[in-house]
């Protein structure tokens, strides 16, 4: 599991969970102030994100917490503002709701309301997203809520490499970072760089280059968008560009702007609810910044305005699917075609 082992030269394919352990153990070896707190983390975590840490770093630094979400967070704020760098874990993002007071009213405000006297270098990690009938209390995504709160940085990796690199940066960052791991991609594998590896916050990634339309997304939706792009290329000859935001705060609008300026069309996709989701902010900004130069309205794909039902056919109906991205792209480009035909084109030439 160590980054310096004999596996260095060989296969660097690993799961998100393994990439996470790697980021954590490298950070913990380098800095004794990095600690991990959470329920049951001694036993490795739901996706193996903590596997081996208890053994290597012992129970002083890998702290199995009582089922007390408020205090997991408050203790992290107290420790962070007195010199530690805690990584607080809440297995499912829904459990962060039990710590919202500490997240919103303390972690996010401490630095500002005390006039910059202190900073709060903590990471709050949680798993979000839909995974096989986990139902209403274990399937949701709250990044829009976290992104709305000033003082929080929000990270949502889409690849195992980014899981490692963004987590490492989040731990090194001096501000509270909400680090969201999507459940569905938690066990998917990818090539992960060896040793110390940092991906900066606020730098989006072009996950696929394309000419016709920009899909702005993050986390699991990057996978869905890649699937959709393949279908669209094959069936429609549509060339999709995919922007993986990686971090919502800071938000890399420069990369989004460059892509939309090129394609003239934008589709936004996230697994969270469409209504009031982070896609609304993106759509509002893109609509404003590319006013008169878009070939079609910005389309948004997200969960329907409902909670996640248990029954598989219902879950599929509420959660956004790859086909919805495909559909949104087709509609977007059809809009432009129709507009051109009827002489109502708004801009891009």
């Amino acid at each position, binding site marked *: 599991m160590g980054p310096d082992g004999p596996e260095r030269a060989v296969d660097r394919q690993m799961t998100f969970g393994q990439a996470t352990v790697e980021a954590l153990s490298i950070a913990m070896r380098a800095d004794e102030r990095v600690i991990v707190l959470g329920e049951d983390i001694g036993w490795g975590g739901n996706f193996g994100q903590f596997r081996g840490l208890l053994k290597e770093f012992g129970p002083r630094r890998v702290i199995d917490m009582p*089922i007390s979400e408020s205090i997991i967070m408050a203790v992290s704020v107290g420790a962070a503002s007195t010199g530690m760098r805690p990584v607080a874990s809440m297995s499912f993002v829904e*459990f962060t709701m039990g710590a919202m007071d500490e997240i919103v009213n303390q972690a996010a405000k401490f630095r500002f309301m005390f006039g910059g006297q202190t900073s709060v270098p903590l990471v709050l990690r949680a798993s979000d997203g839909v995974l096989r009938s986990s*139902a209403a209390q274990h399937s949701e995504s709250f990044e829009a809520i976290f992104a709305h709160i000033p003082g929080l940085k929000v990270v949502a990796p889409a690849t195992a490499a980014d899981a490692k690199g963004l987590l490492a940066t989040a731990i090194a960052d001096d501000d509270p970072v909400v680090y969201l791991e999507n459940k569905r991609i938690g066990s998917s594998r990818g090539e992960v760089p060896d040793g110390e590896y940092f991906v900066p916050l606020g730098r989006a990634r072009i996950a696929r280059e394309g000419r016709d339309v920009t899909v702005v997304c993050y986390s699991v939706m990057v996978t869905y968008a890649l699937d959709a792009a393949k279908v669209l290329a094959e069936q429609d000859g549509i060339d999709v560009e995919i922007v993986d935001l990686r971090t919502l705060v800071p938000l890399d609008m420069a990369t989004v702007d460059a892509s939309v300026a090129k394609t003239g069309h934008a589709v936004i996709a996230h697994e969270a609810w469409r209504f009031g989701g982070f896609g609304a902010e993106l759509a509002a900004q893109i609509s404003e910044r590319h006013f008169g130069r878009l070939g079609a309205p910005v389309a948004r794909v997200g969960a329907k305005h409902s909670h996640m*039902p248990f029954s598989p056919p219902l879950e599929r109906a509420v959660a956004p699917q790859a086909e919805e991205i495909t559909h949104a792209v087709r509609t977007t480009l059809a809009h432009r075609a129709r507009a051109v035909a009827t002489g109502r084109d708004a801009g891009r030439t």
Partner: protein
Amino acid sequence: MTRKAVADHPLESADLRRLYETMVKIRIFEERVQELFLARKLPGFVHVYLGEEAVATGVCDALQPGDYITSTHRGHGHAVAKGVRLDPLMAELYGKETGVCRGRGGSMHVADFSLGMLGANGIVGGGFGIAAGAALTSKLLDLGRVAVCFFGDGGINKGTFHEALNFASVQQLPVVYVCENNQFAQFTARERTTSVEDLSVRAAGYGIPGHTVDGNDIEAVRGVAGDAIDRARRGEGPSLLVMETYRYGGHFVGDMEEYRDKAAVEQQRDRDPIRRAETILLARGVDEAELAKVREAARVEVELSVEFAEQSPYPDASTALDGLFATPVVQS
């Protein structure tokens, strides 16, 4: 804290037999659920109640039909004990339209409000205040009902425990808090996260009675719970009961259980609540054949529920958004 003894509460044989039947029904239901899950028949994940049957059984037996219970993520046993029929219960675990929650809830949210079963809940500690709220309804509308809140030894460390018990005590609500101390919260042994050994000492912080009970002794459970429920119904306020029991299986079905010793688990089977009830019944002259008949009847009922569930339709995808609001809203 009093460690109440069995002897305090000898049960009539007929009563014990009834309790035995319920425990057996839960046991067989849960064993079957486990199998079905491993055979990939059930979506999601499931937490079973194996080994803890005496708690739900004894407590719910002391309740009246209109009374309320709140449950946990490990809620099948509570549902059965509160009288939920196995057909819609099993169908719910399958995610079928005929389930208690029309397939919307699944294992972690089984509920039957018509029976006062206010839902299994996927949020640990979610029931503390909900039970107090139901008790408040009873008090304000003079319904004479009692609410029971089931929760785990892990749940007792949630802040909501503290807030609810304080409030319930201040308002002298008809609610009984029943801790199922099965020694584990997920993969973590109780003593690693909990500051006291005897959990019922926490009652003193709220000025209410607290009792620790052998939760695998159905007679003790029924007796102590009956007293606390009666007390609550008389308007004398809440109690905290800690039922010492043990979780035979993993936290969820499929759990590898690397965190504990298989031998320690096996040893706990000596305290098995069902076997202990059998021993008493046999000693009192009940026939082994009669007990076998009870088990067989339960098996048949469970099998029928599996058949019912298998043959039931899935909900129609077009209904996916139904029921979010009581007064529907068109949201663009």
